[in-house]
């Protein structure tokens, strides 16, 4: 199997890259011209986002403050909300790709599900971390047994389990199938967890998170929306690379297997028929 005939989606085509000078890309790498442009746009976006969120937007105090009166701590919401949305998006992509895999049985959907679960785990951890910091300021506690927090924490564990399951299976087809089903089961569980925790807590106390004030003013709203766009770009960029890496890894495994088979064949034809020689070479 030659790697060049199976031109992957994200890789720059070999024909265009030699003239591109410093843009020349390794055909076995994970980047492409498109992904580099995306990466640059994302970097610029992050810088602009930090400027808007940390400097340009006003603190949540004074005359047009929200009911929460968050002061400077409001800024973490510009990070927290987009990251949380991307985390749920990532798990939706994992579940949907799993369903598509079960339907179409093509490798691409499985790789997409795996890449999205990996990126999703990172974003979920970020969501919990930023939410926890926000909670420290808003409620005076790092953790509250609120429905959304608890659901997010369980989601993180569910998908850590999903990734552990993937690592435990070596056969690619079996792995894809079992992972797809595990992803779907996990995803089906999220609303049930949310409702059960919601009911569970509402028996003891009122919901602690006051909804993010919808009458949020101009520059704050812009910071929030801009953050969403930027973190969607980050997600897309990470996905491109993780997807491509999974793809290259799968090809490397196949080639390793092919090479091992060819080696054994060469051994067989060279006339050394002793079984001892065979086991020696396999070690």
């Amino acid at each position: 199997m030659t790697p060049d005939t199976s031109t992957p989606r994200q890789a720059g085509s070999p024909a265009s890259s030699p003239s591109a000078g410093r843009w020349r890309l390794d055909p076995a790498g994970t980047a492409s011209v498109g992904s580099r442009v995306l990466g640059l746009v994302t970097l610029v976006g992050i810088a602009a986002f930090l400027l808007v969120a940390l400097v340009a937007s006003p603190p949540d105090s004074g005359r047009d403050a929200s009911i929460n009166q968050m002061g400077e701590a409001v800024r973490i919401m510009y990070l927290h909300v987009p990251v949380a949305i991307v985390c749920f998006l990532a798990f939706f992509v994992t579940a949907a790709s799993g369903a598509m895999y079960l339907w179409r049985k093509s490798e691409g959907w499985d790789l997409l599900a795996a890449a999205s679960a990996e990126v999703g785990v990172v974003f979920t951890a970020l969501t919990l971390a930023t939410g926890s910091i926000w909670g420290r300021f808003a409620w005076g506690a790092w953790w509250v047994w609120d429905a959304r927090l608890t659901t997010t924490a369980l989601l993180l564990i569910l998908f850590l389990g999903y990734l552990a399951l993937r690592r435990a299976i070596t056969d690619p087809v079996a792995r894809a199938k079992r992972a797809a089903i595990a992803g779907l089961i996990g995803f089906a569980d999220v609303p049930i967890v949310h409702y059960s925790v919601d009911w569970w807590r509402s028996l003891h106390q009122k919901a602690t998170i006051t909804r993010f004030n919808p009458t949020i003013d101009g520059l704050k709203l812009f910071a929030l929306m801009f953050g969403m766009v930027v973190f969607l770009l980050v997600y897309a960029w990470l996905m491109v690379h993780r997807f491509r890496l999974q793809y290259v890894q799968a090809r490397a495994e196949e080639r390793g297997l092919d090479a091992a088979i060819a080696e054994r064949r060469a051994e067989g034809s060279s006339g050394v028929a002793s079984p001892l020689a065979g086991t020696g070479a396999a070690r």
Partner: protein
Amino acid sequence: MLHDALLVVGKDLRLEWRSRVTTNQVMPFAVLVLVLFAFALDPDRRILQEATPGLFWMAVLFSALLAIQRAFVLESHDGVRDALRLSGLDPAGIFLGKAAGIAVHLLAVELVLGVGVTLFYGAHVGGPLLLIVTCLAATAGLAAAGSLYGVLAAGLRLRETLLPLLLLPVVAPVLIAATQAFQAGFRQASGEGWRWFGLLAIFALIYTSIGIFAFDPLMEES
């Protein structure tokens, strides 16, 4: 499908009758967990009584892990998995059979635990009907989700450590709902409890239907 399920559950129960693994190992383990909880918390009955529903269901969850491992280790030896596939049994029937087998084991464990909490923790039964239907619905949910994850982890080298990580977060709603329903059942004010029973029933329905559809692709792989 139902006929196949009966065949599978009959086989599993016959195996249990001859090997007595649940009776001789899982049930004593469940009682041991109750005793250990008492050591961990307090010999003071007040705390134990308050925590009884939660401790009861934690003990059930731990026992369920053992029962599920056992149910699928049975199928992994000597190529039984292939034999099941070659037998021509409906995969949905195999799923229902395995789940029903696990459910019967769990119900037996719950009966023993029920006696245990009345004895050790001084639990007082207020609404027996609610307690019984809660047990039935929660067990159905645990068995269905457990069979799904049992077969997902079956045959893997790391299955012993993987199964708890995969299963426990998914059955967290069962723990919450069953605990709340039991609390209501012990208190005799069972109005709130029926809502939790509804959640348990929905959970059981969802995971039973996922299992019926998902067992086919899971069984056909090598």
